[in-house]
């Protein structure tokens, strides 16, 4: 108990440790809050006002636009028809419409005032229409009987691999993703604690390690005491970070705070174990091990989407295995499972994966730590 108490004291008084564990994530969270705090309001999507000028008739296109306007679930466009380009241009300038389309038979000209998400949407629609229309036309020329079936199939969303997923969670803001990644990184920063404690147990790494190795208290007992103290200390710090992110920065992590806390603690365990792994397996001086440790949590966080929210999606396409084994991604996915999808099964998969990785880190670390004699000191 005495050793446990001093281990807690050492962690509490370590300015460097407190900075990485508490100050850094809170500060980064504050930056995120300022950067993304108001962005959610801009993303409330409303229908796009589109002007149409038919210089040469194209009933199919105009009808399709109107059909989309009428569709209850897909109320994407508000269509304004103009007699000539001048009227449409006036509407564009006074911001009645975001864009207008000049239809000249099969030719479409898109006129915009500025490029933004809404004009991009209209352009995508026009491009898609042109592409599909050409395809149907070609099929109709070759086999008119198949044209109808082909057209139906083309617009059937299932056939092109789209699947609608119901978001049962409360949070739909894409920016909360950054806070998930931030918490993921904060958990993995525990590796710095693991690194320090791991080195202080090895006679060939620090003089404190040598002094502890010549004492009659078994090394494994010292390791367990240190580990439990680090876990306790870091769990408290992470709870503070979590509470600050949820209640001070106002990020929505879903209804079940207990489960959010649980995955945070499991993440802390994995981070801590990662630090012990680096302390025991990476050869070289203290500075090299510290650099490795920083690289571990920074790279893991980057791959988990801390700097670029799209990163996990890119990896899912290019190298999905990384998303299955990267601790930061598993943490982000666990948070998302709760807050966005409300999917407890996916949550459990992520937490268990994280736990397994942490346990593996720990097994490898203990295997090295059990060494009782050293080749050189």
């Amino acid at each position: 108990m005495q050793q446990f108490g001093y281990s807690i004291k050492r962690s509490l008084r370590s300015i460097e440790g407190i900075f990485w564990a508490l100050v850094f994530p809170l500060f980064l969270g504050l930056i995120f809050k300022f950067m993304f705090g108001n962005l959610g309001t801009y993303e409330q999507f409303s229908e796009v006002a589109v002007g149409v000028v038919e210089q040469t008739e194209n009933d199919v296109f105009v009808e399709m636009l109107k059909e989309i306007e009428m569709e209850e679930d897909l109320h994407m466009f508000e269509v304004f028809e103009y007699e000539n380009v001048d009227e449409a241009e006036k509407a564009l300038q006074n911001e009645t419409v975001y864009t207008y389309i000049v239809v000249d038979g099969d030719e479409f000209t898109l006129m915009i005032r500025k490029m933004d998400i809404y004009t991009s949407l209209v352009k995508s629609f026009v491009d898609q229409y042109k592409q599909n229309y050409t395809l149907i036309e070609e099929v109709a020329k070759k086999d008119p009987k198949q044209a109808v079936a082909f057209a139906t199939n083309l617009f059937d969303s299932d056939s092109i691999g789209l699947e609608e997923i119901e978001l049962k969670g409360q949070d739909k803001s894409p920016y909360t993703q950054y806070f998930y990644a931030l918490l993921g990184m904060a958990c993995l920063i525990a590796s710095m604690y693991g690194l320090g404690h791991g080195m202080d147990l090895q006679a060939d790494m620090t003089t404190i390690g040598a002094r502890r190795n010549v004492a009659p208290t078994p090394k494994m007992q010292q390791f367990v005491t240190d580990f439990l103290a680090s876990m306790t200390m870091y769990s408290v710090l992470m709870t503070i970070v979590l509470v600050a992110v949820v209640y001070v920065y106002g990020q929505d992590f879903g209804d079940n705070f207990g489960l959010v806390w649980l995955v945070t603690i499991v993440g802390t365990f994995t981070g801590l174990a990662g630090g012990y792994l680096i302390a025991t397996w990476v050869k070289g001086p203290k500075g090299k091990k510290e650099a490795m440790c920083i690289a571990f949590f920074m790279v893991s966080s980057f791959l988990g989407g801390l700097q670029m929210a799209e990163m996990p999606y890119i990896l899912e396409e290019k190298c999905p295995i990384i998303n299955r084994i990267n601790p930061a991604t598993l943490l982000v996915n666990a948070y998302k499972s709760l807050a966005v999808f409300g999917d407890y099964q996916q949550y459990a998969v992520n937490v268990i994966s994280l736990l397994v990785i942490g346990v593996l880190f720990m097994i490898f670390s203990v295997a090295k730590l059990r060494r009782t004699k050293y080749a050189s000191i």
Partner: protein
Amino acid sequence: MVVKIENLVKRYGDLVALDHFNLEIEEGEVFGLLGPNGSGKSTTINCLLALLEYDKGTIEVFGEEMTPTSYESKKNIGVIMQNVAVFDELTVYENIDYFCGLYIKDKNERKKLVEEAIEFVELQDYRKFRPKKLSGGLLRRLNIACGIAHKPKLIILDEPTVAVDPQSRNKILEGIQKLNQEGATVIYTSHYMEEVEQICTRIAIMDKGKNIALGTKDELKGMIDLGETISVEILELPEAVKEEIAHLPHVMNVTYENHLLKVRFSKGKHNLIRLLDVLKEKEIGFAGVHSELPTLNDVFLEITGKELRD
């Protein structure tokens, strides 16, 4: 027998750090391991503490083979490392209490021992200081307190006075003698021959991993031919007179540099009188005259042909 090392061999690749090294240390001794840097002193200590793997040989401490799990033996050993080994985040008191806690589980007993250790190293005024606020000398004293607070029967000090000011060094040396008077056996490694001469009852001189000489300081000095070195300050010394001095009985070597005549004599009587008679006879004026008995450096020099600090 407190320590018995037999035929110890330790290699680092091609380098033989300990070459069939033997050592026996009796209870109550202050045993000095003297040798230049790289002679194998620290390697011997690390093997003795079961920290280092070795290639051959046996090590016994308190009559039992020393292994990493020799917890009963370890309870009675205190170690003061060459580099300071304390936690920067803990105060002086807490550091001593922490390391003492690795040996003594009883809280009350530990409290008493920690207080005694603080008093012993005279850090009473610094008990709430963190190590970073201590000077080099005070830090060394804290390092010692952490190693001896549990009152070990065998205390191993590996160059504890490196980079320490003379005042702190004297306090450390006095402390070691006091610990020995209280019953502890001490192993003291150093490359400072003056320290070893001052406190050690028996000395082993090491070079290239071998025990090249062993005994009390008088026994060691008795192993060499040198009896005394006489230095005389002379303004000018003709070559002929220098030659005459070189032919006096027991003279081993004569040098004259920077107006200082140095004559090394083998053991024998009346060396000083004979030397001064020659100078008087040749009407050579002289100032200060000093006579030095052989040092351990002379012993090392005569055995190995090099200085201890080469």
